[in-house]
């Protein structure tokens, strides 16, 4: 694929894009009125004609195929992400052509023995579809994170932080060539929760609810409300009215122009003294919207620059949610409310009036990463403790086996010996499996911690590096932000 001069291509801008997201609660035999609700959802999607519909908890493939059939004329392009034992439950219905799909399954997703919670069996994942939208390349992510069962004492918090981290890494590393980035789904996190702040600060994704011009829906944008027929009031405690845990997050590539600078030329200007140490050469800078490429290049005294992004901006014009009950229908679409966002795609020149789009400051990102790292470390301790328990279980069982079997054999009470033997074998096997499970969890937590440390170090370098270049520039230009939002910082 030759490099594309997309910037000069005529696309039909400005344009509108309507995105829909809903956690369908499609657990056959368990969720209520499943079949009828899928009928209703199918009708809704057919009538509303969204550009892209992102569904979660479509656990049964039959339900997906039903929707696919019903929407075959309105949404001819679909993808169903399969992972885990039961499947990820993630499905995408699109008017526009899906060029490619990629799935990433989270490394930690609860425990198989927590059958009551069942998250482990649904392979929680993030799916990516690359959609061709009016000639632009849209990377659309749909995901569903581990549920929060107890806010006061969240035993799954390390798992959910790891999922948030893996989600943001996935988005950052795969959205490089995108013009538009859209993320929809059930994050199972409140807007200011650590995982959410981590996600937004590292990816630069913006919450449609906070950004939108017009909003029509539940108070405070709640997506799991007490008024909904299906929600259990005790699940919402201590939040009486509802909680906001489903989101549509957006970002457009051109918000941060990426300027690649010929470092050898920059080196001649003596901007950095330690150019010889190749691994300490963060040279790439980003400019805020409005500053021309040539002016920026002149600022750092470089003659050569490369533009690596598209002149498109995306803004949320309106957001709406369902409000529990549905007109003319006996019950709502799901226990969650549905989100519909109307996004405007504009040429970046047209959107200059919107002002600077700030990348989250480096210090904020460092703080939130440190906070997340602490949670992961805590999780590591807890899991190591669990693994020790598994070892103790195995040892204890072995001892019991020996102690109990001997007297039984002496009295040749074969049946009791057999029974005890069976029980002990069962306990030993469970202990061994648990040991393996916790070992994998520990490895994942350690890997995540290492990645967070790496990121923190990079941010630290940026923080100190940024000050050096900022002070040496004689212009009264705005502070140059050395972040490259779609790419991993160097």
């Amino acid at each position: 694929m030759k490099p594309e001069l997309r910037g000069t291509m005529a696309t039909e801008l400005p344009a509108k894009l309507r995105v829909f997201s809903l956690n369908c609660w499609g657990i056959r035999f368990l969720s209520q009125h499943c079949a009828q609700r899928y009928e209703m959802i199918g009708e809704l999607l057919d009538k509303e004609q969204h550009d892209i519909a992102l569904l979660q908890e479509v656990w049964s493939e039959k339900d997906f195929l039903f929707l696919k059939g019903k929407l075959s004329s309105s949404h001819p392009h679909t993808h169903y992400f399969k992972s885990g034992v039961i499947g990820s439950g993630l499905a995408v219905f699109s008017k526009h052509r899906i060029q490619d799909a990629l799935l990433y399954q989270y490394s930690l997703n609860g425990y198989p023995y927590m059958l009551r919670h069942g998250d482990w069996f649904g392979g929680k994942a993030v799916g990516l579809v690359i959609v061709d939208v009016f000639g632009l390349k849209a990377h659309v992510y749909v995901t569903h994170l581990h549920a929060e069962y107890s806010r006061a004492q969240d035993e799954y918090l390390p798992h959910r932080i790891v999922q948030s981290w893996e989600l943001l890494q996935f988005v950052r590393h795969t959205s490089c060539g995108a013009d538009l980035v859209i993320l929809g789904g059930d994050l199972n996190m409140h807007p200011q929760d650590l995982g959410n702040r981590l996600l937004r600060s590292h990816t630069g994704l913006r919450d449609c609810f906070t950004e939108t011009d017009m909003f029509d829906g539940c108070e405070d944008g709640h997506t799991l409300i007490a008024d909904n027929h299906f929600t259990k009031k005790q699940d919402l405690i201590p939040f009486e009215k509802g909680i906001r845990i489903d989101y549509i997050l957006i970002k457009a590539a051109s918000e941060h122009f990426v300027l690649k600078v010929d470092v050898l030329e920059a080196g001649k200007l003596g901007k950095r003294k330690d150019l010889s140490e190749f691994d300490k050469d963060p040279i790439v800078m980003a400019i805020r919207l409005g500053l021309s490429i040539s002016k920026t290049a002149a600022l750092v005294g470089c003659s050569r620059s490369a533009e690596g992004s598209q002149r498109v901006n995306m803004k949320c014009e309106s957001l709406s949610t369902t409000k529990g009950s549905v007109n003319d229908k006996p019950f709502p679409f799901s226990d969650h409310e549905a989100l519909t966002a109307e996004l405007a795609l504009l040429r970046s020149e047209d959107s200059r009036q919107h002002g600077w789009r700030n990348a989250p400051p480096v210090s904020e990102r460092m703080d939130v990463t440190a906070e997340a790292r602490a949670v992961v470390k805590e999780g590591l301790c807890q899991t190591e403790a669990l693994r020790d328990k598994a070892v103790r279980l195995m040892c204890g069982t072995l001892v019991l086996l020996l102690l109990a079997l001997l007297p039984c054999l002496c009295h040749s009470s074969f049946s009791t010996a057999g029974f005890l033997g069976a029980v002990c074998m069962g306990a030993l096997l469970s202990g061994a499996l648990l040991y393996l499970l916790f070992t994998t969890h520990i490895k994942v937590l350690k890997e995540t911690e290492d990645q967070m440390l790496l990121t923190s170090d990079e941010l630290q370098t940026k923080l100190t590096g940024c000050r050096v270049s900022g002070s040496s520039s004689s212009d009264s230009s705005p502070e140059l932000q050395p972040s490259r939002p779609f790419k991993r910082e160097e």
Partner: protein
Amino acid sequence: MTTSAPIRLRVFSLNCWGIRYLSKNCIERFVLIGDLLNQEQLDMALLQEAQHGDWFGGKAVGKVLLNISGLTVHVFVTHLHAEYCREKDLYLPHRVVQAWELQQFIRHTSAGADVVILGGDLNMHPDDLGTRLLRNYTGLLDSFSEAAKFDGCEEGFTYISENPFTHTDGLVPFGGGVRIDYILFKGSGEVDVSCESLSTTKGPVPGQPFPYSDHEALTAEFLFTPTKKGNGCSEREFGYISDKLPELINTVNEARTEVKVGLHCSERMRHTAARTGIMGLVLLVLELAIAAVPLFALGAEQPFPKASFYLLGALCFAVLLSTLMLYIFYSIEVKALQGTEDQMRLALSSLHERIKESPKVLSSDHLRNPQYNKDSVHLKPDS
């Protein structure tokens, strides 16, 4: 642009055979490896196998991003599932899926890279389906084929019979060695990458009692030169070369067939597990029913056969538990294979679209297709 000096990079790759308690002379070999890496002035060393056991060793691909003199270099290191029996490769579907997932990962995360390097033990021969899929779809080049200078085992073998640690019997049909470790590379619109030299170790190490590992080590030297065109546009998409499109489509089709075969097998295994489980359940129920009968009998004429009751019960329970776990395991495998097949189908339709849009193809009438996608009003001027 012509004044900027080209950059050299030395990359090393080795499967270290680091299975504690199992691989021979493990500790001493790691000391040797450490010394080697210290003295060789390498820019980058990619190591595999600090752990073993295919299922337990969570085979994965790792990625690091480097900034070398202002260039973004994406480096991938990986280790794929081993091939235990070439004639009847039970793991072929798994390996094809791994190769597919590897190329997906590389393609989707390298869109802004100036240079991409992949090193590791792919456990596949150069012309195997998985290797072809990986190379064709990503456009990565094999350093062995591209190197200006080569010094090492004949035909670039990386697992050879001369190495005292290897199992020589399996290597006889291949002429004494196989090439299963690679360093692959690719440049971009901004940077040309060429492989100046490639070298491998040749089994025993002079002056040392044994080799570094059962695999040979690869060392490649690359040269990065800025391209003359430097039109300033970084590549928006990372992948194949348009000329190779038909070949790529064939390879993906071939891979898809393998995945379908694997899927079929997996579904059959899952079905067997389910049937066995149900049989175990039926047996258990039957046994409980039989055991219950004496309770209704008047008087205890026959002693209750406790021993056989418990034994049979334990057996049924064990069968139930193990078939349940197998069912779960096969379900995961089935889902993974189905997911991969879906992705391949999607990819194939995308590739077919590209071929239709390709200017070379448009000129040939017999390929003109009246049906067009209502979304793409403009034919893309590229590709």
